């Protein structure tokens, strides 16, 4: 009897392990006069990076996995913070990252840092400019995906990590993953770019520009100099609403909302919320302004618009057949992603194949659009888990 009870408890613990506890940490570098030189030529310093790690680094330091987050993400990739209650909302990729999950923290040392220019602990336009003692605002220099990657590299140097089992990221995080392969190919054993592109299409740039204009047209924006007064929340909320439309899909919106009305039986014949989809977008917008900085959105969307691997890759070793690199690639796209459709993943695939790179590709059937990679999905977990397993085997 006692044994049975013991086995039962063990079983239950296996099914529901206690939530992983994580801690946000900070690393500051590029202290003046040794400022960081950005791709634009501008110099920035000091630079603080907010990051979180999960799992244990082996003594040989050979089990590190870097996760690069999407445009509005942060370092909180999985688990709960130390002081949070058990029912708090875990990190943004908790379905993928954790003990026994696709990216198994029992085996891998997982690092995720907030990107340069963002607003969740890493230096960005809302940080204090040491030269003036006030927030940077538009004084903040333009940063690129390459600059974000260089900042991550500085963090890895600080952590003493010289080799990565894998770099993994979706969307703008996928761009950073690819940028890593271009800048530091010798450090990387594998790369998993998910729902991403070698460069933005006119459609993607167009949506970003509408989002930026929504912010800049808000009178509270004041040329980016709004810190300490009312923030351009209306503009930022509208920008997020546009973003959400691009992250969903026609099918997903039909399924989720259709033409259903919100808490009413008939039209209001006014401009209040009638349709559920309006209510959803307004809610997403109002939620977003509580956690994101409008200027950060301007900077990061611009960085993603500037990203162009096609232009730069022509002469790069990653895309030249005569330059051997051992990076194993797994490219993943989603059927209903209309922001970075599968044809763009195929362009990447084509470039990698032409260079003779070791590459796998899978298009996942999903109707939820670009955001599908953030939605818990056993298929994605198996793909990523099995692929990484093959790297270390």
């Amino acid at each position: 009897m006692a044994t049975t009870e013991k086995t039962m408890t063990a079983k239950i613990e296996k099914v529901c392990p206690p939530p992983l506890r994580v801690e946000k940490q900070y690393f500051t570098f590029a202290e003046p006069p040794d400022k960081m030189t950005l791709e634009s030529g501008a110099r920035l310093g000091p630079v603080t990076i907010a990051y979180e790690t999960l799992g244990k680094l082996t003594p040989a330091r050979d089990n590190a996995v870097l996760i690069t987050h999407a445009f509005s993400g942060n370092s909180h990739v999985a688990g709960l913070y130390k002081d949070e209650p058990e029912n708090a909302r875990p990190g943004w990729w908790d379905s993928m990252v954790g003990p026994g999950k696709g990216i198994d923290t029992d085996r891998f040392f997982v690092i995720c840092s907030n990107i340069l220019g963002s607003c969740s602990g890493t230096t960005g336009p809302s940080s204090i400019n040491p030269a003036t003692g006030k927030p940077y605002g538009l004084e903040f220099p333009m940063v690129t995906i390459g600059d974000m990657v260089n900042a991550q590299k500085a963090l890895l140097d600080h952590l003493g990590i010289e080799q990565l089992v894998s770099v993994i990221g979706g969307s703008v995080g996928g761009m950073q993953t690819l940028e890593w392969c271009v800048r530091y190919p010798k450090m990387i054993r594998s790369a998993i770019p998910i729902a991403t592109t070698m460069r933005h299409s006119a459609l993607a740039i167009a949506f970003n520009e509408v989002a930026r204009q929504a912010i800049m047209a808000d009178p509270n924006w004041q040329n980016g100099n709004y810190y300490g007064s009312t923030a351009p929340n209306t503009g930022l909320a509208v920008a997020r609403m546009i973003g959400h439309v691009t992250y969903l899909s026609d099918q997903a919106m039909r399924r989720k909302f259709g033409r259903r009305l919100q808490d009413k039986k008939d039209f209001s014949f006014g401009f209040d919320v009638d349709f559920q989809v309006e209510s959803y977008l307004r809610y997403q917008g109002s939620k977003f302004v509580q956690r994101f900085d409008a200027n950060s959105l301007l900077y990061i969307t611009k960085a993603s618009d500037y990203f162009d691997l096609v232009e730069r890759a022509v002469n790069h070793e990653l895309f030249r057949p005569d330059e051997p690199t051992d990076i194993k690639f797994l490219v993943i796209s989603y059927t209903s992603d209309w922001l970075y459709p599968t044809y763009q993943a195929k362009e990447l695939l084509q470039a990698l194949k032409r260079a003779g790179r070791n590459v796998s590709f899978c298009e996942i059937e999903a109707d939820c659009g670009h955001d599908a990679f953030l939605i818990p999905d056993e298929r994605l977990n198996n793909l990523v888990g099995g692929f990484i397993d093959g790297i270390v085997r």
Partner: protein
Amino acid sequence: MELSDNTLMRYDLRIIASWIEKESRVLDLGCGNGDLLAWLTADKRVRGTGIEQNKEKAAACIARGLSVLQGDLNTEVEDYPDHSFDYVILSQTLQQVYEPAALLHSLSRIGRQVIVSFPNFSHYSIRLQLLFKGLAPKNEQLPYSWYDSPNIRVITLADFRKFAGDVGYTIVKEVAINTDHHDLQGHTVHWMTNLRACYGIFAIEKK
């Protein structure tokens, strides 16, 4: 990889596997669940890549650590540089290809040797069905009806020999086989192969 016991592999794949040199570069078109690639990777240490149209199968291959591209083999082969592979394998796929001549032309560009296996449409059981019943024939190797068959090309061993020559290939190896249930066991057929073999396996090279 898990499949080190090759008796669990389809009999025609075991023959193909025996033809592959160690540490060669292999492209498996229509690789299915990746059994052949997994075996070749583990036992012959090949650098293998597979192409598979079916998303679940492709995902299963990747999840077992194989390099596999999900997509249409006819277009996927176009992107590889010349002479990328020592062997290109087309196992039980040719009968489903819309333009076999165009495909074989592409394969001669990217691979040194092409290995093709397909069900033999001139097996006596098929001939007898057509002769006596007058219906589109079915057997274990070709189990579909005329209206739902993915096998849009009916090929006989004799047809393939002629076709290989017409598209500029030389046959360097040829084996005809019969398999029993589930295709796991089998034996080689040595005489009257066009009449008696269920499958043909050919290794061809560009002249």
